[in-house]
């Protein structure tokens, strides 16, 4: 058997057999440790979907995600088993860019933080239902053309995270997701990044889980404080930085005071003359 025939067999024997389903295979979109995602057409509803094919032992992933109805979590349309015994689930086909490619397009700081906030909201929602992601990384976040954000590839027990984004925890839990969210924040920040945001990311990435934010919402609240020009919890800023922040936050008031003082000064001199 030649190498080319072998490679062809390896490829075609892995293709999902969709006979008996409502789907028609179009192309492969990507693959991860847990399965392969294909673009497919739903013949009954005449729409394109993303079809994830995975080992039957991991089929719980579909049920897991189907429970999570949130604007930032890709909705699952249907789950099932293929004739070859593998499990599949059909979900919304998200068009947009992966977070790493989105950031490469140099969006504004507000847009970057907006994406992180959406991811954090999805995490908080999932955590409240006892679900952890386990493998949060830029490749698992999609940003749509209208700024919508989707967190994908929600974890199953077999997932052990991706080096660089995986917390150094012996056992993955919600705090491990907070670590990954901090890593994600550090990833999207421009260079140089505001020190307050760097501090937020650093706190979330603390080696000690107890030193991290207690939840995704606490991290988001700190980002919100930064955006409103308030002091963030993660950083004890120096006095001059506090002064500068006060200045930029109350710029209008300071300008009015300065103008008032200037006019008074002018009037004082006019009276002397």
């Amino acid at each position, binding site marked *: *058997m030649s190498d080319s*025939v*072998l490679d062809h*067999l*390896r490829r075609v024997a*892995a293709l999902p*057999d969709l*006979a008996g389903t409502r789907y028609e295979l179009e192309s492969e979109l990507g693959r991860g440790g847990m399965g392969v995602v294909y673009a497919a057409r739903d013949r009954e509803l005449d729409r394109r979907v993303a079809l994830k094919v995975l080992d039957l032992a991991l089929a719980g992933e579909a049920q897991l995600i189907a429970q999570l109805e949130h604007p930032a979590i890709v909705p699952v349309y249907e789950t099932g088993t293929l004739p070859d015994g593998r499990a599949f689930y059909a979900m919304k086909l998200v068009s947009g860019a992966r977070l790493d490619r989105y950031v490469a397009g140099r969006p504004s700081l507000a847009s970057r933080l907006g994406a992180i906030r959406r991811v954090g909201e999805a995490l908080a929602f999932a955590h409240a239902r006892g679900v952890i992601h386990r493998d949060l990384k830029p490749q698992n976040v999609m940003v749509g053309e209208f700024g919508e954000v989707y967190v994908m590839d929600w974890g199953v027990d077999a997932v052990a995270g991706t080096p660089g984004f995986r917390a150094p925890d012996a056992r993955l839990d919600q705090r491990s997701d907070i670590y990954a969210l901090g890593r994600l924040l550090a990833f999207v920040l421009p260079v140089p990044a505001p020190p307050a945001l760097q501090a937020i990311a650093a706190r979330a990435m603390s080696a000690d889980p107890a030193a991290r934010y207690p939840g995704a919402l606490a991290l988001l609240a700190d980002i919100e404080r930064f955006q409103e020009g308030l002091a963030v919890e993660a950083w004890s800023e120096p006095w001059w930085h506090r002064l500068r922040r006060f200045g930029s936050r109350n710029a209008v008031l300071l300008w009015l005071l300065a103008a008032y003082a200037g006019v008074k000064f002018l009037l004082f001199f006019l009276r002397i003359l």
Partner: protein
Amino acid sequence: MDTDTAIGGPHDRFPSTQPSLLEAAVAGLPSEVLDRVVALYWKPVYRFIRLKFRKDNEDAKDLTQSFFAAALERDFLARFDPARASFRTYLRMAVERFAASQYAAANRQKRGGDVRFEPLGEQAATTESPEQAFEREWQRQLFSLALDDLRAHCDGCGKQIQLLIFEAYDLAGGERPSYAELAMRHGIPETSVTNHLAWARRILRGFVTERLRGTTSGPRELREEMRRLWI
């Protein structure tokens, strides 16, 4: 009517489910297990020895034969610990140790290490490392055995057209015929060509899985091997 699109059915079932290595060892079937291991690994081991130790054809065959004979005699399977490595890695490392010890013995016999290396010849043409060649050969052998299973299965259940279409399309060495050409050749609709190919590929995949199941320690290793196998 095209019956191949039906899901399940008697012809979609595999003749047997092979026990995993550990299940077989527990059940006390080591010779049967070793037969499976030898069928799948003889050629990869032979190729690995040729490249790694620069052996000529006959020496590599002898060494491969000696390795499996020694594995049969010793508690080769009992010493396999799936927590430490996959069976494939365990076997390759065992081959390496065995061949190295044979090499050392030959060295001693020749008093001073006057061991002659074979000219590289055809081996120099490959850019693959011995480890890569071992894995590649393992894949090739796995699919070759699964193809034999598929052919036997098709003969047994009267699926000759499916097999002919599969062989003409998926095993074509050069340019593949179009679905329309295959449909015309066999006097069937083009959709049937699609269905026959899907059926044959699914059955082939099943046999590959079965062969793998019989030469891995359990579901976890099987999953990992499957993940490595599919492109």
